[in-house]
């Protein structure tokens, strides 16, 4: 949907609170946007966040958890809800974009400067998200496939259940390299070095979809929150934490 870009100035905002289930990687950005939202409503409406793995959030919604907005780190989870008609399709929109980067430990004896270097015999282990459960892992698998590396690296891959685990492995030097989002790498600061960015055409665009939940009893407030995320101020906050705009081309390219 694309008609979610309505103005929110002329509508009164409901009192109470809305519940937003969001991918845990959005925590810092969304917490800030949540404060903005509260201020905007004159402190009458607050946002309760439920941060977790996108898959868990999806299953909660499928089983009737009282959620008003869902922001996922991958399209797959949102699609699953769409099929079951659990989201308000009109409100669905991609609100942010991410890029995939190759990281190595801060102090590393192994020289890795590109994805191709991963085939070097000195690279014993590479941490990536589990493609079956972690969106970042899904994109990583896709990218490695396009680069023709899947076969060669198959027995070097360590599958993590969340991005944090990949970061931990890399920071602690348990693996020679890892593949994460640029936002995650940014969060880890100087503990990891970004050595390469995956080409946009090696994987589907990494888009973060957001939508209001069909069963929500605060659909107006939910849409207002989505609007805020989409607004200039909202996008500014997201940019601050390393996300780029969903429509804009990847700035790292």
């Amino acid at each position, binding site marked *: 949907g694309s008609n979610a870009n309505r103005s929110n100035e002329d509508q009164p905002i409901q009192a109470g609170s809305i519940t937003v289930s969001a991918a845990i*990687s959005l925590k810092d950005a969304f917490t800030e946007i949540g404060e903005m939202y509260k201020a905007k409503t004159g402190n009458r409406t607050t946002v*309760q966040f*439920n941060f977790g793995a996108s898959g*868990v959030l999806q299953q909660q919604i499928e*089983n009737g*958890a*009282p959620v008003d907005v869902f922001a996922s780190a991958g399209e797959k989870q949102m699609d699953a809800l769409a099929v079951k008609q659990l989201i308000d399709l009109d409100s669905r929109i991609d609100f942010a974009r991410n890029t995939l980067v190759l990281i190595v430990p801060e102090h590393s004896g192994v020289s890795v400067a590109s994805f191709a270097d991963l085939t070097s015999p000195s690279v014993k282990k590479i941490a990536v998200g589990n493609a079956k459960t972690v969106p970042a892992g899904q994109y990583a698998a896709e990218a490695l496939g396009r680069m023709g590396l899947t076969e060669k690296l198959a027995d070097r891959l360590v599958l993590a259940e969340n991005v*944090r685990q990949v970061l931990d492995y890399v920071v602690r030097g348990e693996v020679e390299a890892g593949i994460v989002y640029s936002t995650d790498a940014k*969060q880890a600061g100087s503990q990891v070095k970004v050595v390469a960015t995956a080409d946009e055409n090696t994987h589907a665009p990494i888009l973060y979809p957001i939508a209001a939940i069909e069963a929500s009893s605060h659909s107006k407030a939910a849409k207002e929150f989505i609007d805020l995320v989409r607004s200039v101020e909202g996008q500014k906050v997201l940019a601050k934490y390393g996300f780029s705009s969903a429509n804009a081309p990847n700035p790292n390219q």
Partner: protein
Amino acid sequence: MIWDALKLSLLVVSVATAIVGAVGLLFSYLLAKTEFRGKELLDAALTLPLVLPPTVTGYYLIVLLGRRGLIGYYIYEVTGWSFAFTWEGAVVAAVVVSLPLMIKASRASIESVGPQYELASYTLGKGRFETFLRVTLPLARRGIVAGLVLAFARALGEFGATLMIAGNIPGKTQTMPLAIYEAVASGNERQAQILALVLTALSIAAVYLTNKMSRTQAHG
């Protein structure tokens, strides 16, 4: 945030431990003192929440108790209320995962009480219930306290199943372990460490005091 999570954890854990204590003793009694078909099978089945990954347990809980769940549906229809995203949901998760610990430990200790004391109590005109309460329980004290401590600790640390059914809503369902999870996952290491320290201190203090108390009281 620490404060909210701590308060909530204490609430959830105390309610859960009380329920586990009562329900666990009932089951232990049935398993230890009565004979029925499929008894050992029930005992074996009761260890299941230990074996299944908590997230999976949580998944089954939500399938059962969620607003569209097998049971949850009727609860919702009648009361308009559901376990999902409530602290009561967190209690259910904590009870389910910690109950097996209580039952295993206390069943064993109840069975180890020599029958002569219970028989003596019967000859003194006491029924099963009073005998259990005044003779068997005090004599099985150590194992029961061990079971309660295990259950308490497990409930305090419960995370996977709670996340699934109760969600992770600060001030509402975010218990200490969930707060730690969130801090870790969002790269907030400092906060994660503080939270883990508080949780550690709380648990050590509680277990230590329980040990002290149960040991200074009359020992059989």
